């Protein structure tokens, strides 16, 4: 072992340690920000390690430097600009886009190595070694392509650029996807047999497979898919690590792959969905419309914003339940103004955050934090549920399935078993909603029929704005 090898070894070891500490730290609120920086530092360290190794051994040609600099500047610049500009509400599609590009990178590396075998590795080309090489290239291309096209489709659907085509909800899609999967398997074995030209077949069919699998999935399940694709991009990175013989890449890729899988599992649990049904079930609303959970509402009470304001004024304790609809309406800032007024009047305000509130788990916390809501006011479901009986008013804003009492009472309901917020136990519940449409599960919400529930119809942002006006007229929060 000569010096550059030892130095690289030490740097790699340090980078792995720091990356692991980074991921660990990201799971605690206090240390999260530093942990993120630590991970970023570890990544730059790993680059320095790699470059110094090549400088110390074979040297780096000027031509290589030029291409390194071009690629780095363009990629970093676009990444930084997008990260600074993108609004917080579009976080899910932004993560999807970044993730897709990571997959693309692994795909290109494998493609490059496959088309132009790296000279040094062709020296000791025994059968076993070349087999491993072919397998890791194929895996890297396969997973990388699925990650890329899947993420792009996910992003396009979240942005509303792509809708769900009708045929993807029928059984045809399973047939189509199986054809793609079989075709990629054929290309895979053909490639291992030494037929290099089938690499293009592999690229095409695995790309199509990524599209075919993601396209039928409904918008609300998309976060789960993104998290899964995030896990895939880790696997793609690990596969690329086998291609270029880098342990650091394998460790980091495997860590992200495993962590992504756990996160996916957690998200599924919160939504009471199994991973299998997310991936193969199509969009939930399509299959459950015929099920027993649907039915007519019999006892809807609708009320005006004015009544709502009067009730709020008289309350001592108010719990806000924000949901997907609030995120879509981008009404978090308006909501904050309302709660500020209430707080100035001495009313206790707490936010009840369901684990999957918003467009992604934890997304609601980010949105409310952006609107300057104090962190202490955000209460998680298990903490806040015992408080509902002692609460005067609950404001449900754009949330639906997460406050459906069916999940507790009706064992025939598809929602049964999902953890929900027990809002019906409060004295009065106001549900601010655009219309009587169902939540993404497509299931009737029994809460709306309860005598202590009143509906306030309208766009969340508009209703909240009107509410501010009404509260002002009542003299709330003006001292």
């Amino acid at each position, binding site marked *: 072992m000569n010096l550059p090898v030892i130095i690289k070894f030490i740097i790699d070891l340090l980078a792995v340690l720091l990356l692991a500490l980074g991921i660990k730290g990201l799971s605690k609120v206090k240390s999260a920000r530093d942990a993120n920086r630590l991970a970023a530092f570890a990544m730059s360290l790993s680059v320095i390690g790699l470059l110094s190794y090549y400088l110390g051994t074979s040297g780096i040609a000027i031509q290589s430097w030029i291409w*390194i600099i071009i*690629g*780095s500047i363009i990629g970093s610049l676009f990444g930084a600009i997008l*990260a600074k500009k993108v609004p917080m509400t579009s976080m899910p599609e932004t993560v999807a886009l970044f993730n897709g*590009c990571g997959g693309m990178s*692994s795909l290109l590396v494998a493609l490059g190595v496959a088309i132009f075998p790296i000279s040094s590795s062709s020296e000791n080309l025994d059968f076993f070694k070349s087999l491993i090489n072919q397998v890791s290239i194929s895996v890297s291309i396969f997973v990388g392509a699925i990650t890329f096209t899947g993420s792009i489709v996910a992003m396009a659907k979240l942005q509303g650029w792509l809708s769900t085509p009708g045929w993807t909800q029928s059984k045809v899609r399973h047939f189509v996807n199986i054809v793609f999967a079989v075709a990629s398997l054929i290309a895979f074995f053909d490639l291992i047999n030494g037929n290099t030209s089938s690499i293009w077949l592999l690229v095409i069919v695995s790309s199509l497979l990524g599209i075919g699998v993601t396209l039928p999935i409904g918008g609300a399940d998309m976060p789960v898919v993104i998290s899964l694709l995030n896990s895939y991009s880790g696997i793609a990175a690990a596969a690329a690590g086998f291609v270029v013989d880098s342990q650091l890449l394998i460790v980091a890729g*495997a860590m992200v*792959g495993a962590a992504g899988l756990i996160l996916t599992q957690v998200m599924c649990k919160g939504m009471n969905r199994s991973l299998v049904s997310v991936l193969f079930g199509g969009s939930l609303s399509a299959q459950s419309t015929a099920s027993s959970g649907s039915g007519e509402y019999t006892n809807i009470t609708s009320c005006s914003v004015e009544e709502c304001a009067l009730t709020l004024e008289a309350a001592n304790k108010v719990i806000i339940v924000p949901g997907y609809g609030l995120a879509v309406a981008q009404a978090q800032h308006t909501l904050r103004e309302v709660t500020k007024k209430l707080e100035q009047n001495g009313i206790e305000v707490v936010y009840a955050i369901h684990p999957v509130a918003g467009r992604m788990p934890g997304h609601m916390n980010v949105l409310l934090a952006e609107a300057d809501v104090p962190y202490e006011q955000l209460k998680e479901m298990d903490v806040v549920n015992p408080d509902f009986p002692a609460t005067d008013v609950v404001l449900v804003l754009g949330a639906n399935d997460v406050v459906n009492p069916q999940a507790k009472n009706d064992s025939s309901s598809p929602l049964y078993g999902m953890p929900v917020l027990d809002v019906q136990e409060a004295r009065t519940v106001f549900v601010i909603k655009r219309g009587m449409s169902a939540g993404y599960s497509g299931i009737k919400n029994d809460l709306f029929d309860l005598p202590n529930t009143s509906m306030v119809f309208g766009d969340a942002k508009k209703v909240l704005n009107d509410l501010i006006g009404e509260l002002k007229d009542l003299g709330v929060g003006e001292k």
Partner: protein
Amino acid sequence: MSFISLLWVLLLGSLLGLELIGKVPPTLHTPLMSGANAISGITMLAALTLIVKAEGNVPLLIIGSVSLGFALFNVVGGFFVTDRMLSMFSRKPSNKK
């Protein structure tokens, strides 16, 4: 590095990943996903290796460079966006008082 030891590396790395993400408050799911996503851009090392070993092969240099660009887009964007999200949490208490 022999293939078998690389497999060990893969196995241990996966186990480490499973252990690290044991308990995460739901608050942090989105930032964690975004941060882990940034780390998956570590393929930039593979892209760099490709460029360094290209030995004047221009098409390979271009592929490597594009790959590096995609990876860095992932890494830089991912870390910045995660930092932006997390900055909103940490600034809270001081703002209140």
